[in-house]
Each structure stands twice: as C-alpha cells, then as structure tokens.
C-alpha cells in the first residue's frame, strides 16, 4: 500500500536515478522515514533488477560476417514462395501500389492528411492480397504462407520499387 508520500512514478524514477537532485533528496528522505514506501520501493527495485538480469542471446560467431555479406549483395533476407510461383501477380501488385501512391500522393496532404508509413504499408499489403484473392480462397497452406512471405518482401522492397514503403519507413521516422 502506497502512502500519501511521493507519487509512485517519482518512486520508480528515484529508484532509476532519473529524478532531479532536489526531488531525489525529497523522495529519499520520505522513504527513509516511511516503512510502507520502503516496502513498495523494495518490490519495485527487485522487479527492475530481475528484468535487467534476464538471460541474453548471444549472436553466433559468424553473424556479423553474414550480415555484411548479405548487405554487400543487397539481398533481402528472405524471398516469398508465391513470388517465385506467380511473379506476374506480385509485379502487378507492386505496379498497382506505385500507381495508387502516385494518384493519392499529390492529394493526400490536402485532403486526407499525411499517411503514416504503417498506413502506406497496409495499403500495399491490401493491394497484394486483392491480387491474390484466388489463392487466398482456394490455395494450399504453403501458398497462403507464401503470401505472408511476399508481404515481407513488399515491406523490405526499396521505395522506388514498392512506392509505398520507404526504406526508412515508420521504423526510422
């Protein structure tokens, strides 16, 4: 149970060393005098320490070399199966995405507001799914999974190819 002392956000920020000095001194003095807040602080400190100590995955010895090799080759990490099976459909989807972007692009600031990278990516994905409706309705599991893989390819495509998904995208804006 938290008392009427400092807000719990300040208690956590104090534990994390993120309070200005004057506020930190005030919280420290209160915690020193208040058993309830000491218990509260102990539990919160422990939860933070445990998360910090969670196991860490270590990259394999050749990880950096693999990254450098694929970046030099300009290779995408994976290629979808359906893209290999029906390249024309995938190409049509990419072209449709570019056309839509060009049609909407000039108007979007004035009429629609700026689309986020996520919205642009969703439109590209929807277009691609529309292009592959037949496979979605009657395809095998492998074909369906291939469509999902192709969506990855659209995401990873260079902006001049996909049109809607800049390499910097929402990840780096």
């Amino acid at each position, binding site marked *: 149970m938290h008392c009427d002392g400092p807000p719990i956000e300040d208690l956590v920020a104090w534990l994390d060393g993120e309070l200005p000095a004057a506020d930190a001194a005030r919280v420290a003095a209160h915690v020193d005098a208040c058993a309830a807040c000491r218990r509260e602080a102990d539990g919160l400190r422990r939860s933070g320490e445990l998360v910090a100590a969670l196991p860490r995955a270590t990259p*394999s010895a050749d*990880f*950096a070399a693999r990254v450098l090799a694929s970046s030099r080759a300009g290779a995408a*990490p994976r290629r979808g199966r359906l893209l290999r099976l029906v390249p024309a459909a995938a190409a049509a989807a990419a072209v449709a995405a570019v056309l839509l972007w060009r049609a909407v692009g000039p108007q979007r600031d004035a009429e629609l507001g700026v689309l986020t990278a996520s919205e642009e990516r969703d439109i590209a994905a929807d277009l691609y799914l529309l292009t592959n409706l037949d496979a979605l309705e009657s395809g095998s*599991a492998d074909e369906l999974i291939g469509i999902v893989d192709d969506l990855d390819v659209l995401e990873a495509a260079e902006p001049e190819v996909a049109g809607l998904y800049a390499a*910097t995208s929402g990840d780096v804006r």
Partner: protein
Amino acid sequence: MPDDDPDADLMLRFRAGDEDAFAELVRRFQGRVVSLAARYVGSAADAEDVAQEVFLRIHRARSTYEPTARLTTWVHRITVNTSLNALRRRRVRRNVSAEMPGRDAGSGEPPEFADADAARPDEESLKVELAQVLRRIVDALPERQRTALLLNKYQGLSYEDTAAAMELSLPAVKSLLTRARVNVRDALLPYLESGTPPA
C-alpha cells in the same frame, strides 16, 4: 547531431561511403540488437533473422540518415518495430496453419536462451525457472509497457533515450515504466512467495 555520440559518427562515415564504418556498427550493436529481438521472438535463431533484417534496413537507409537523435535510439526503434513485425507475421502463420488440417501450428512457447534441459544444480534450475516465469510476465504486458521496460531496464537506455526510441514524450514513458514495474512486481509476487509458477 548530439555532441557525445560516436555511434552517429560511424553512421555518417558509412553514409559517406565507408563500408568499414558499417562493419564496425554491426559489431558494436549486434549483441544489443540480437538480445532485444530475442526478448520479442523467443529463440536466438529467430532473433538473428530479425537482427539481420534490422541491419539491412540500416544499410538501405544510409542515404537518408540524418543524425537528429542518438544513433542507439534509432537502432533500438528499428529493432523493436522489426521484432513486432516478425511477431505479427508469426501470428498470421499460426492462424493459417491452425486452420489447415495436418499442419503443426507449433507449441507457441519458445525456449529461454539458457539450456533448460541440461542437468543443473538446484540453484541454477531455479534461476532458469525464474527467468521463464519472468519472461511470461513481461510478454503478457501491454505492448508499449513491455517495450518501455525492455528498453529501459534490459537494454539500459535512459528515460530520455527510451522516449526518443519510442517516439513518446518523457512523461508518457515515465508513466509506462511505472505501470510496467508495478505489473511485473504484482505478477511476480505470488511466485516469489509460494514458489509455484503461474499457470
């Protein structure tokens, strides 16, 4: 550019065409990127796939890179978004697989990185069990709470860098971190008191 960010210097050298700078950047960040990705996708192998995509995105973005924030916040943002995309793709695949007869949807429970099957002394087994319990608790947090907690406590980013990586205000991150810490503590308490892992 932030004055005290040697990592941003590396990226600027890379933008100017120095491929060695990119190699150094990969070496410098690979541990943090793989480690954080693994907290989302579960296995070290899947985390390396995500990490590879992260570095390829950085490679592709070099011409548009502007050092407006510390490089580490930018790399962490890409890592979080790429990891969440990977999780979404995995969910779609599971849904597709689950609806197709004769296909294995997978157990849905990735192993912790430590080898939990190996014979261990009791203390080590308890550590592994605690890590597994904690991982389930952290995984169950709302997405933004989990990301804020991992960036701040697991990756060691300051509140300010966590806010920059998540593109949120400082008060918003402070609030997320508080709720995350309270939720983790409350969920962990029964296990710490009784020793019985939550269902």
